[in-house]
């Protein structure tokens, strides 16, 4: 894992001191809320329905046990004993007090963490593949590149006041586990004739105008990558709309001028940027990459004893192959049946930290699906890990099944929401609680947003649910056919909306249609794509 150098630590410490002064001035009445709001947002502090909410950055979703324990400590000391892991691979605390926020950030800084780039019109926390460094199908480890982008983007003077927020994802596998093409910039590291580079996709996103990022360049050499991204941002910063917040994202610019014209402008700008010498020297890349060297794998290839049926189900569902013989990737579901997607108590966070330290080379990852990953666990230790998880109510074997639901905080917490998301997730998970039933349905990605901003990624759900306000009453629209994976697609609304119980019934009817019509190993989305909407619509609306 990357470790802060003197510069990293200095800028984070300085930011905490600066924010402490700003908070004091606000409480003393020296600055108004209008003046203070952009300052607190630059430090991840929102005002939500019930209290201030602090969003803490977890760069590319990677952290160690010391940092994870600090997250638990923050939950206990400054919040109400829990945290909410988000679709940006971050964590949010829902009950923060303004007067304690600087103390919190000061403690966070002691473990090389902060809340910078979690709000505002800047380049947000870089996201990546939660299996980075462990996946057999990756062409390179994407984390050094994500870290390089973090360093480049943090406090970038030119890109701190963009027309709108800006999200970048980096992956290095053909299998997309990070919804890469639904980002403002998506990078897929690839090799061409042995040389490392990246496919560059620009102009994707969800929100009220979902778009899949078109490929702007099929291969940018690694040596040119930072300059090329700088050029992408410069064109956006120059021509992105600032007069209308709903048209300010880069996806609108790329869509309006067209991918070809955007590509041409980026090429022109790139020619200029390349003369500025911003791409890091090889020595700096090597310095960063060294932090991500593979751990000392030495475990023998031992197949775990599958005699416990619950353990065997968990192995099949939540444990994924590792590139290193003798090791596996463990997914920890934060989606207990009837629970709140992404929430974990301080005690559970501590348990996961302990497991990482004892069994996982001290590494954890947060996934965009609001789960936690231990990327490097020896197969011989899987049963021991599972037992600890089970004792902490963290052993739900539902990864990628219908109850592994992404849900935004919705109207229970969020001031932007129009409808509650969590109760719908709870009811659907409870309806499908039977594991055999879930496993029979197979991979089915269900995602719920409480408003059109789409923090719950409903556009990318095989089944998506969007909560809307219909004359003061919660109403839920269903979408089918979305995907955030390598088969990326945007879901389509299937018809009139439902009330809370109605949408649960509709989801169940859709699964029945799927079971009737599926062929071979088809997933729900495969069957939907093959047969189209009509059979589903007929069953749901009659």
């Amino acid at each position: 894992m990357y470790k802060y150098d003197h510069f990293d630590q200095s800028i984070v410490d300085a930011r905490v001191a600066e924010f402490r002064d700003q908070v004091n001035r606000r409480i003393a009445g020296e600055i108004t809320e209008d003046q203070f709001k952009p300052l607190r947002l630059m430090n991840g502090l929102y005002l939500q329905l019930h209290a201030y909410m602090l969003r803490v950055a977890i760069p590319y979703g990677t952290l160690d046990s010391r940092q994870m324990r600090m997250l638990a400590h923050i939950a206990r000391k400054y919040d109400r004993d829990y945290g909410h892991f988000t679709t940006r691979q971050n964590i949010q605390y829902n009950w923060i007090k303004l007067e304690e926020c600087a103390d919190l950030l000061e403690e966070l800084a002691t473990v090389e963490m902060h809340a910078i780039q979690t709000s505002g019109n800047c380049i947000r926390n870089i996201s990546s593949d939660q299996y980075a460094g462990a996946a057999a199908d990756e062409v390179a480890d994407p984390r050094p590149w994500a870290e390089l982008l973090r360093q480049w983007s943090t406090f970038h003077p030119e890109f701190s006041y963009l027309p709108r927020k800006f999200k970048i994802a980096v992956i290095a596998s053909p299998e997309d586990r990070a919804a890469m093409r639904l980002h403002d910039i998506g990078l897929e590291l690839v090799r061409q004739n042995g040389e490392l580079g990246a496919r560059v996709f620009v102009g994707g996103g969800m929100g009220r105008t979902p778009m899949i990022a078109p490929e702007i360049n099929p291969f940018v050499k690694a040596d040119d990558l930072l300059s090329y991204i700088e050029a992408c941002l410069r064109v956006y910063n120059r021509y992105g709309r600032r007069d209308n917040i709903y048209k300010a994202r880069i996806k609108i610019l790329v869509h309006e001028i067209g991918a070809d014209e955007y590509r041409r402008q980026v090429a022109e700008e790139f020619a200029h940027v390349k003369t500025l010498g911003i791409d890091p020297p090889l020595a700096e890349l090597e310095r960063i990459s060294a932090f991500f060297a593979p751990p000392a794998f030495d475990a023998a290839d031992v197949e775990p004893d599958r005699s416990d049926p619950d353990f065997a189900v968990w192995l099949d569902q939540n444990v994924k192959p590792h590139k290193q013989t003798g090791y596996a990737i463990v997914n920890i579901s934060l989606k207990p049946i009837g629970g709140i997607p992404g929430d974990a108590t301080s005690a559970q966070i501590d348990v996961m930290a302990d497991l990482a330290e004892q069994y996982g080379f001290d590494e954890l990852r947060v996934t965009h699906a609001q789960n936690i990953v231990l990327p490097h666990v020896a197969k011989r230790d899987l049963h021991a890990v599972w037992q600890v998880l089970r004792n902490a109510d963290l052993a739900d074997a539902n990864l990628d099944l219908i109850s592994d639901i992404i849900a935004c905080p919705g109207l229970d917490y969020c001031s932007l929401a129009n409808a509650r998301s969590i109760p719908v997730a709870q009811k659907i998970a409870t309806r499908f609680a039977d594991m055999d039933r879930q496993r029979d349905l197979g991979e089915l990605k269900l995602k719920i947003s409480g408003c059109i901003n789409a923090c719950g990624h409903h556009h990318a759900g095989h089944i998506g649910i969007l909560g809307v306000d219909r004359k003061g009453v919660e109403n839920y629209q269903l979408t089918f056919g979305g995907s955030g994976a390598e088969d990326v697609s945007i879901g389509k609304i299937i018809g009139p909306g439902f009330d809370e119980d109605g949408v649960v019934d509709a989801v169940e009817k859709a699964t029945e249609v799927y079971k009737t019509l599926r062929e071979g190993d088809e997933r729900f989305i495969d069957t939907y794509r093959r047969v189209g909407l009509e059979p589903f619509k007929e069953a749901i609306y009659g």
Partner: protein
Amino acid sequence: MKLLTGNELGSGAVTWWTGNGWSLHVEDAVDVGEHGEAVLHAEEGARRVNAPYIIDAVATPQGPRPAHIKDRVRALGPTVRPDLTLKPADPAAGDWII
């Protein structure tokens, strides 16, 4: 009726104007009628409240109830965590929210 609500500056907690101060409980809120804007500006200026705004509400025997669901959720706490609401010991306390 009209209610004035906002958040405490320091804690961020939801508060309601009672006529002579602020309360965490919507039951204590009073109808601000046509005077809401004036109270809002005075209280905001005195830093006793953050991001105040005026909402529609209805009078009930149990006290004022916000007209919009968002403000009803604000009034008590998250519907999915009764233990974190203002009345964690009363399982029926939130029956009027939805």
